[in-house]
């Protein structure tokens, strides 16, 4: 359970205290100024786990842990794209049905009479999703219309496209074993251990080289003790997760895929020019434009990321269900994906958030659904509780912004 690798040089960590002051003092000051970070989410998660574990002893079992990873995979993937869109200060309401368009395209390409090999079917499905995103983005930027309206139209239109593609068939079964393995295969225990150890070693290496490089350049630094604690925590979480999962079926392959996606999109957001421009546009579009950034191009690309990640999520969900049907992409998939990003701490007002919030938010949503499923609560009760959690997250976002001294836009 390694979250995004954050480095002192990521440039997005606010430090309202003197750089030389103790980290703890800085942290406290940040809390007081309303920059709550991941703290409320993690506290909320602990609370959820305790409540469900007290109600039902089956919640914290290896079996349910592995189920949870598989259950949260689709939402997490889609929410990664949502984080990027929200960072711009935009919204994408079409992701639910765009994910279905990709999944249905893949399923139809795999099936007779087309019978494409799986890599081709997956790539074509994702290209379709990319084209959809490019279309949304181009309309939004060319005609300067709100993304809310364009993607709302997309929500309706792509739902229609799904129904047309299905041509009255209720369900298309997926028979390709590789595609089915995406959400249904598990890593052998030894491989799980090896990957966890390798990942931790890589994380530790990057952290310590970073600290050393900054020391050599004479830049202010975190203390080595903090870095050691951070690495130890990551090691404990990832090795613990592998141990726990290995007690059951092992680490799901999809869990590994999620970590890779999260890490890759975190790096894109925090360590590249593209990511920096996304944050800049979300923070002050005019400043970004005057800095010579091609704002419209970045916006189109973000809508493409949103649609492609929706497509990946749709394929994961289809693999898990072993089929696609006319209801694909409907229900509360859209709401859950956006809620995951927001609950995870990405601001709806643009410019603030992290890719890891997709993971944390999806974990909370999936835990609540999973736990309430164990308690045999009705669908109605589930919706009400998930809604309240979302409301709480938005309130935390709004109040913490107020604490930052009128950064309202």
């Amino acid at each position, binding site marked *: 359970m390694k979250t995004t690798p954050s*480095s002192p*040089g*990521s*440039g*997005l*960590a*606010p*430090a*309202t*205290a*003197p*750089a030389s002051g103790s980290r703890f003092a800085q942290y406290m000051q940040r809390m007081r*100024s309303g920059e709550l970070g991941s703290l409320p989410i993690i506290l909320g998660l602990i609370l959820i786990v305790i409540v469900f574990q007290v109600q039902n002893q089956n919640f914290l079992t290896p079996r349910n842990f592995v189920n949870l990873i598989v259950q949260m995979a689709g939402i997490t993937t889609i929410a990664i794209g949502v984080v990027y869109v929200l960072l711009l200060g935009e919204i994408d309401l079409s992701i639910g049905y765009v994910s279905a368009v990709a999944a249905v395209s893949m399923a139809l390409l795999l099936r007779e009479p087309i019978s494409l090999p799986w890599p081709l079917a997956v790539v074509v499905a994702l290209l379709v999703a990319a084209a959809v995103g490019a279309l949304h983005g181009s309309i939004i930027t060319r005609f300067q219309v709100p993304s809310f309206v364009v993607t709302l139209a997309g929500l309706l239109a792509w739902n229609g496209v799904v129904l047309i593609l299905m041509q009255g068939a209720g369900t298309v079964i997926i028979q390709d074993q590789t595609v089915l393995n995406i959400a249904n295969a598990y890593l052998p225990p030894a491989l799980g251990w090896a990957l966890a150890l390798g990942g931790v070693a890589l994380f530790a290496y990057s952290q310590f080289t970073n600290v050393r*490089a*900054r020391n050599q*350049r*004479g*830049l*202010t630094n975190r203390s080595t003790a903090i870095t050691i604690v951070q690495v130890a925590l990551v090691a404990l979480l990832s090795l613990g997760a592998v141990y726990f999962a290995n007690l059951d079926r092992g680490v799901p392959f999809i869990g590994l895929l999620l970590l890779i996606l999260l890490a890759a999109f975190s*790096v894109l957001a925090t*360590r*590249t*020019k593209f990511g*920096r421009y996304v*944050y*800049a546009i*979300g*923070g*002050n579009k*005019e*400043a*970004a434009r*005057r*800095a*010579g*950034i091609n704002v419209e191009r970045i916006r189109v690309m973000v809508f493409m990321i949103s649609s492609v990640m929706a497509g990946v999520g749709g394929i994961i969900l289809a693999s898990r269900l072993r089929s696609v049907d006319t209801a694909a992409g409907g229900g509360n998939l859209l709401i859950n994906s956006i809620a995951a990003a927001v609950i995870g701490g990405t601001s709806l007002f643009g*410019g*603030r958030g992290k890719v890891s919030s997709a993971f944390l938010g999806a974990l909370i949503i999936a835990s609540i659904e999973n736990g309430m499923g164990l308690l045999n609560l009705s669908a109605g009760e589930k919706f009400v509780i998930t809604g309240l959690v979302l409301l709480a997250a938005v309130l935390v976002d709004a109040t913490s912004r107020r604490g*930052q*001294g009128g*950064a309202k836009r």
Partner: protein
Amino acid sequence: MGEATPLLELRGVSKRFGAVEALTKVDFTARLGEVMALVGDNGAGKSTLIKGIAGIHTYNEGQIFFDAKPVTINSPRDSAALGIEVVYQDLALADNLDVVANMFLGHERTQAMGMLDEDSMERTCIETLQSLSVTTLRSVRQEISGLSGGQRQAVAVAKAVMRNSRLVILDEPTAALGVAQTRQVLDLVRRLADKGLAVVLISHNLHDIFEVADRITVLRLGQNVHEFMAQQTNPQEVVHAITAGKMLHVPGMAEVEIQ
């Protein structure tokens, strides 16, 4: 303060917006190592003049000399290529990014595989701020949202200076600042000139201008009224020029040159 050749010289520039003549045959100079103040009442044409230098719009007539060579400025890019940086009143900083990210916005340095070279940028950022003696920032990793108005102005100025600029234009840099912060910004303006840059300072505050400016150009109703040497004049004279200065051309009248 000798008669150094001007870095930037505008000769007889005019700008019309439809029937409105915003600038009429204005001359303007900026010299290296000097602060040139640009003053005038609202609507005198200060912004129109500056926008022409910045490449936001082009003058209808007149010539621009830079380094004694005639140049054309048709876009902000042309202006930046000459080494002209404008710090606008709204500063154009992204609140949610830290100081380093803002200073390098649009000009980020990268290392292997397109990764941002944060350490190198942070170093240059610290060096630039130190060279300007900006000591009020506690950390260059602070978000802009946590900075005071004066600190923001300092960041915006440092950003302009860092691009190897030769002419820095500051639009009302002290307009929204308190006493202590105004002091800091004025000191900064003076240091820019002392570093050998040409500085143009637009301001309504004559007190500020007499503290830092070497020369003062007064515009009135789109025309030059006078260019003063700051040490050889006084605020009364400048105020008189702003409000009642004599104009060479009568707006709206056909050109009857008296020369």
